[in-house]
């Protein structure tokens, strides 16, 4: 029997159904959570199944609604707040980072804050400057938060359930371009612990650390590199906080080379943290300068003509790996196969959103 494969979006939906089923304190709330589009298919049918007081819509009030879910959590509930774009959550940074993250600590451990705040990272089809920010590095900076950013359908479900069952505020980040990607997902209840990195592909020549959607690009890059006889080890850093530094350090001690592929910006971000950890704790283990493959240091342009040059792809990772190996640059790395449209998550996508 081949293992069951479902999409990342369906995995999220299963995770929700499992959590809603097991614990009457769990509820989902967010703009459009029960709407016909089902939040990119991740909540479809849940209101029908669990009722309007478990799966519900809300006003367009991100900051207030964050505080409201926090209060409900202090009073016995286990809410999941859903944002269709991470960008909208910038209205709620006080509640997320100054309140939720610090609540347990600043009240001396007397209260718990079991909330999950889910944010989708947009990309493609003109999402542009205000619908595509991937600010996971901000959240990773804040003690008291947990930050989950699964790359596979399996981890999406398992980490979502773990996040809901966790007694701390968890920022749960999903890249829009992962929703349609399928993978093996067990039925029923299981958890993937928050706080561990995943070895996505073993290798010995170079370590590629990747976050979220970039794990796919990294695996693609590793496959291409394998054809050139280069064995890349790919680490899926699905948990940004707590951060599993050990896996990174062990890998670079073995490979001696490091490329970090981030779905966000470089400056003072997670990619910097990975390089810094290696510098501090594995000094001398790198035989070549490490490389970061991140977004260029500018806002996201809307025009596909620019966005195509904005988002790094597998080819950029391959090129960075070549650099760490002292190999000559190969311009064909960045070639785009005929017919591939870089502003679409998959060929079936036709917009509008």
């Amino acid at each position, binding site marked *: 029997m081949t293992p069951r494969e479902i999409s990342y979006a369906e995995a999220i939906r299963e995770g929700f159904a499992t959590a809603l089923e097991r614990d009457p304190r769990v509820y989902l709330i967010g*703009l459009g959570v029960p709407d*016909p589009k089902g939040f990119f298919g991740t909540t479809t049918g849940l209101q029908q199944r669990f009722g309007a007081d478990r799966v519900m819509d809300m*006003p367009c009030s991100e900051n207030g609604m964050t505080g409201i879910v926090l209060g409900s959590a202090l009073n016995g509930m286990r809410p999941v707040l859903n944002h269709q774009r991470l960008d909208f959550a910038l209205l709620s940074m006080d509640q997320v980072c100054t309140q939720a993250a610090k609540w347990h600590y600043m009240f001396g451990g007397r209260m718990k804050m079991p909330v999950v705040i889910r944010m989708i990272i947009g990309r493609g089809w003109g999402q*542009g*400057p205000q619908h595509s920010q991937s600010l996971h590095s901000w959240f990773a900076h804040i003690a008291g938060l947990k930050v989950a950013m699964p790359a596979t359908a399996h981890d999406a479900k398992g980490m979502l359930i773990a996040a809901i069952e966790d007694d701390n505020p968890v920022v749960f980040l999903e890249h829009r371009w992962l929703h349609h990607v399928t993978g093996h997902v067990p039925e029923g209840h299981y958890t993937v612990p928050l706080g561990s990195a995943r070895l996505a592909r073993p290798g010995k020549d170079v370590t590629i650390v990747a976050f979220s959607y970039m794990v796919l690009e990294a695996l693609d890059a590793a496959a291409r590199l394998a054809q050139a006889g280069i064995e890349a080890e790919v680490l899926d850093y699905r948990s940004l906080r707590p951060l599993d530094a050990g896996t990174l350090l062990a890998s670079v001690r073995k490979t001696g080379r490091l490329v970090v592929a981030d779905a966000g910006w470089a400056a003072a971000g997670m990619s910097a943290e990975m390089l810094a950890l290696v510098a501090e704790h594995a000094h001398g283990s790198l035989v070549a300068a490490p490389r970061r493959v991140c977004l260029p240091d500018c806002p996201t342009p809307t*025009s596909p003509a620019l966005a195509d040059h904005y988002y790094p792809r597998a080819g950029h990772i391959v090129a960075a790996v070549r650099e760490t190996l002292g190999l000559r640059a190969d311009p064909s790395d960045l070639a785009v196969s005929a017919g591939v449209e870089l*502003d679409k998550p998959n060929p079936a996508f036709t917009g509008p959103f």
Partner: protein
Amino acid sequence: MSSSVGADLGLRLYELMLRIRLVEEAIADRYAEQRMRCPVHLSIGQEAVAAGVGLALRADDLAMGGHRSHAHYLAKGGDLRAMIAEMHGRESGCCRGRGGSMHLVDLAAGFLGAVPIVGSTIPIAVGLAFGEHLQKRDRVAVAFMGEAATEEGVFHESANFASLHRLPVVFVCENNLYSVYSPLSVRQPAHCEVLDQARGHGLLAHPGDGNDPLAVHALMTDALAHARARRGPVFLELKTYRWREHCGPAFDNHIGYRTEAEFLAWKERDPIATFEKKLRAGGVFDEVRVARFIERQRAEIAAAFAAAQAAPFPAAATLMDHVYA
């Protein structure tokens, strides 16, 4: 509408609504070609608001909008070619292709920007008015907003400050009953009105029929006089209805968040057809003029699309331009 001024205003309102409708229908028709590779939020069915407001404004007045602002931009006199080019992601676009359909700007026309974060241009528009106040000038700023934007705290913060300093700003709230697929009933209490919230901040607040361009124009004319005379900011709640899906070119009454009957009732009240009837009844409808207008519009729209599609994309080398001034 007996005077010739009235007749001319009527025809101009009619033509502006028509222009907006024709442009947006062209966008809808051509969207499937996949050359406008960005979200589009159409105002088809809501044209009376933009037209009534647009023609009441002085040319040098200022306006800002949101995700659904093609109509606002055009009504303020925004350049059609630059807008269509923007949707096509071209260097000739009003934002040089960096913005797309939800980021529109035409400085010459006084349209100072639209952004897709709900409510976020409201304080910025109030800031435009604050700038007028500080510089002792007399332009008025308009904040176009949907009714969901009143749910954002920033609307209230903006209204309070505008009221405190009696800033020359008019909040034009298009209440089309929905935020994406969410009806008002899941977002705002049934026992109070959007208007009450504005009044709570001491704004002069009026309801209006957002499908009647003449009513909108009259309300807006008064609002502008009030704001310009520094008697305080004004809030207009204009009820209207979006015909197509929240985002994209299609109709979507079948998907379940609203009924076909509701849509049809509003379609009955099509701002353009209804107004045309009124103009005809008043004897001021000018077949020839309108026919010529439509022809010219179609040509202009076709030319705008042709120009956009022929225009160069931004060069890859310019990706990092404009990050800093």
